[in-house]
Every structure is written in C-alpha cells, then in structure tokens.
C-alpha cells in the first residue's frame, strides 16, 4: 500500500537531484533542465497531497496546472536568453560567463 510518505520521498529525492544538477552543471541548458526537475518535484508534492489530504477540492492539482504553465514560460525565456548568449559569445558553458564577477 502506497502512503503519502512514499510520494513525498520521491519528490524530495527529485528536488535534491535538481539542486545537485543546478550546482554542478556547466552547460546552461542542463541547468535549465535541473530547474525543471525542481519544479516537477514540487508538482509531485502537490499532487500527492492533493489526492491524500484534499481529494474533494483538489486545489493541489489546480496549483500544479499553474506551475506547469509558468514553468513552460520560464523555460521558453531561459532558452531565448541562452540563444542570445550563444549568438554573442559562441558558448553556453557556465564557466565562461565571467564578464561579471560572481
């Protein structure tokens, strides 16, 4: 029998993988993918809570739809910025983005 804890554990693991990818990736597109992982971990959390503790109003499922829509917008803009950088600099390696000090 699957309990809500199982889904929460998967969500937390996914979130941690996302954070790991965010910190270690050198390719800007991989960093964007890691952010998608973070958002999907949150989605999983919302869906799990929604079906276990809020099966009538399903507010969590509605929240997830909003998150997916916004994540799409964010990915579109992220890729557009990566494209602009590639046109100017011919690289999307994060290590090379050092015109501004961190």
């Amino acid at each position, binding site marked *: 029998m699957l309990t809500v804890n199982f889904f929460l554990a998967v969500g937390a693991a996914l979130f941690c993988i996302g954070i790991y990818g965010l910190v270690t990736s050198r390719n800007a597109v991989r960093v964007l993918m890691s952010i998608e992982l973070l958002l999907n971990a949150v989605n999983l959390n919302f869906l799990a809570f929604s079906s276990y*503790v*809020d099966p009538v109003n399903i507010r969590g499922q509605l*929240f997830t739809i909003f998150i997916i829509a916004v994540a799409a917008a*964010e990915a579109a803009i992220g890729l557009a*910025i990566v494209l602009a950088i590639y046109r100017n600099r011919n690289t999307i390696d994060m290590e090379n*983005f050092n015109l501004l000090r*961190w």
Partner: protein
Amino acid sequence: MPIDVSLLNVGAIWPEIIVTLTILTLMVVDLIGGQRVAKQLAGLALLGLGLSAVVIVYQLLLQLGLIGGPVPPTESFLGSFTGDPLSLVFRGIVVLSSTLAILMAERYMYQSGAQVAEFYTLLLGATLGGMLLSGSTEMVMIFIALETLSISSYLLAGYTKLDSRSNEASLKYLLVGSASAAVFLYGMSLLYGLSGGETKLTAIAPRIVDMGFPALLALVLVVAGISFKLAVVPFHQWTPDVYEGAPTPVVAFLSVGSKAAGFALAIRFMTEAFPAYTLQWQTLFAGLAILSMVLGNIVAIAQTSLKRLLAYSSIAQAGYLLIGLAIGTVDGYASLMFYLITYLFMNLGAFAAATLFTLKTGSDDISAFSGLWRKDPFLAVCLSVFLLSLAGIPPFAGFFGKIYLFWAAFQAGAYTLLFVGLVTSVASMYYYLRVVKPMVVRPMSPEVEAYPATNWELPGMRSLQVALGVSVVATVIVGIISNPIVSLMNESIARTPPLQTAKQLSQK
C-alpha cells in the same frame, strides 16, 4: 458552484485593470503606428500609471476615512486578493518607482537604439506583477503574481540583447530566480499538505499551530524564497551582477519596485500564515537583517563601479528595512513603509544620476566622477544629495527614515539590531562620501574633461530632468514632512486586518 459576480468585488483591482489596459493599448498602438509613434509611447505608459496611482490614492483615502466614512477593506476574488491599506501603500510605491523608471528610460532607450514599445510593455508587466503581489492572500495567486514580476524582470535585465554583459546578467538572474521560486514553491507545497489542503494564507494559520518541525521547515523554505526577492544576504549573489549588467533604468525599478513588492509579500505571508511562529520568523529575519547590514556595507567599501556600489548599498538598505519586519510591532511596520518611501526617492534618484552620467561619458567608475562639480554642478548636487541621504545624513529623508526605524527598534527592545544598524550606518558614510568628496575637491577626471554640456532639449532628456528633479525635491522634503506621512502609515496599518490579528496573537 454558481458564483455571484458581485461577491468577487472586482473594484479592488481597478489600479491593476488600468495598468493591464495600458499594456494592451501600448501594444496595439505600436502595432498600428510603428516607428512614427515611438516617441509618444512613454507618455502613454506614464498616463496609465498616473491614472492607476490616482485610483490607488482615492481608494486609500476612502479606506482611511479621509473622504467619506471609513470603508472597511473587503476581500476580492473569493479571498485571493485584498485591497487593504497595506497593499494600497505598497502598490503605490511600486507604481511610483515604475513611473520614475520610465522617465529615466526614455533617453536611455533613445540613445541605445533598442525597441521602445516592448520595453514599456515589459516594465508595465513587471509593475502589474508587483502590484498584484502586494495584495495577494492566496498561494496560487502569490505564485502567479511573483512569476509575472520575475519573468518580466528577467527579460528586462537582458533587454540590451547585443550587450553580452546584459545577457549574462539576465541568465544569472533567471537561473537564481527560478531556483529560488522552486524553493519557495516547495515550502508552499509543504504548507498545503500540512494544513490539510488549504491554499489561503489565513486558512493555513490555525491548522499549523502545533506542527513543530515540518511547519518550521516550510517556514524556512518560504523565507528563503522571499529573501531572494528582497536581495538580502545570503540570497544576494545575483544582485551586484544584475545591477552591473542590466540597463540602468531597469536596475532602478528592480532595486525599489521589485523589492517593495517582496516586502509586501514578506509582511503578508508571515503575519497571515505564520502568526503561531512569530518568534521563529522574527529571529530568522533579524539574523538576515544583521547579515545584510554587515556584509552589504563592508563589501560596498571595496567597489569601484558606482552601479556595483549602489547594488551593495541596496543590500545594506534591505537589511535596515528588515529591522522593521523583524521587530514586528505596528511602529516597526510603519517605519518600514516610511523608510521604503524615502528609499524610493533617494535610490531612484541615485540611479537617475548614474544614468545621466553614463549616457554622457559611457562610464560608471567612481573615479570618473572626480571634479564633476566644475562641469555639471546640477548633476553633482543631485547625486550628492541622494548619496548623503542614503548614508543617513540630516536633513535629508534617509536620516528621518533611519531615525524612525531605529526608534521603533529601541522601543521594541531589539538592542542588537539597533546596535548593528547604528554601527553599520556610520561605517556606510565612508563609501558614500568616497563618491561625493572627489566630485567637489578632486581635479577633473579625463571623462569629466571631455564632458559635453547638458542639452535638456534633446529627445527624452526633459523626462530625465523631471525624474532627477522630483527625486531631489522629494528627498529633501519627505524628511521635513515625515510626521504626517508616518501617521498616515500608522493609520494604514491600524486599518489592515491581518496585522491586527498578528498583533493580538503575538501578545498572547
């Protein structure tokens, strides 16, 4: 479930409706008119913001009972949004900062040759997000408003797309911003589960009272997400990069408008969803305030570019503002709002001065400002006033703002915060004066030697002059008329229901 439209209470979002209509009008006018109308678009955007500001002031006066009987604030959209005095003050600040940013952007856009219509559309979009964020009381609404603000800001930061520094600023802002939005969302998902399926902040509060560790985890995640918007240490790394790389008018908006919306969110989220954990979140914010004040002011000393200096200075200012939140008294909130108003004028003014100087010399190095007094006394005086006000030197507005904040901290017994605030604001005078002094006493730098005479008749220069003038007058005057403004803020807080309940809960 049938919904009665009158229950939605749509009237509360009239200011936002006006801004939305302005955005649509801007896009249509640009589509039809093309290049011929490019010069009129700023006027159109300003008109929309002005109308919106008028409605905000009207609603505020109405709710405070200054015209007609006091109207109690009602929730709109079935509890997703509220137009209470707290939100009205913050929406006013966001609109005002956007107005000043547009005034200083006009010349910048003209000189950089970028498309103007999209710029105003995006800036108004960010304004809209900030305004909605100030009044949101429900988690989905908060998330959507936050992302409206953030996504527009990412695009604005990368607006000069042929400049690779602007690209880089935009990418860093986007990556850090969306990661922190994800952390914020993770915290909200925990809140949703712990409260048993509630998304309204006030409905969450009673259900997480005795949760212990899980609720605290959610609290920490939410605070981390909000702190990114406030740009406080240790969530500040994006600030100097974005401030240096992004177009200056955009930075001006980000440093005030976006930050004001973040503070509105912080106040509302903490007082409505976490009244049972008041001690914990106040301790958290007190720690963040101390870190920001210390680190922001120390690192600012080492900067050589004026925009980076203003970036670290704004981190430090966020620390001072957090004092008002961390003590959590009515006086604390009132002085936070008052300091935000003074900060609005002095910081936007400093960025307007930096914009003008950069437009004329192409440099924003602090050493380039030497001897500016002899070539352009007006700009030198303006910049000095703003920087001295940021340093908290009387008789400018910043001094009075700090006095109210520190006094509120003293009355609340937050002596550590008070001590750190006092010591760091004395230390901060050093780096502000490091810009002011060479302007007057040093010989002219090569940039200033080649400084062209200011021609206010050039397109867009007049509005930059207006922005500078308004900021300088306000920076001088707001301090003198601080008493009525602070009592207005006090009155606004007294009529904001969540802050009332927060006060009662913390007294128990």
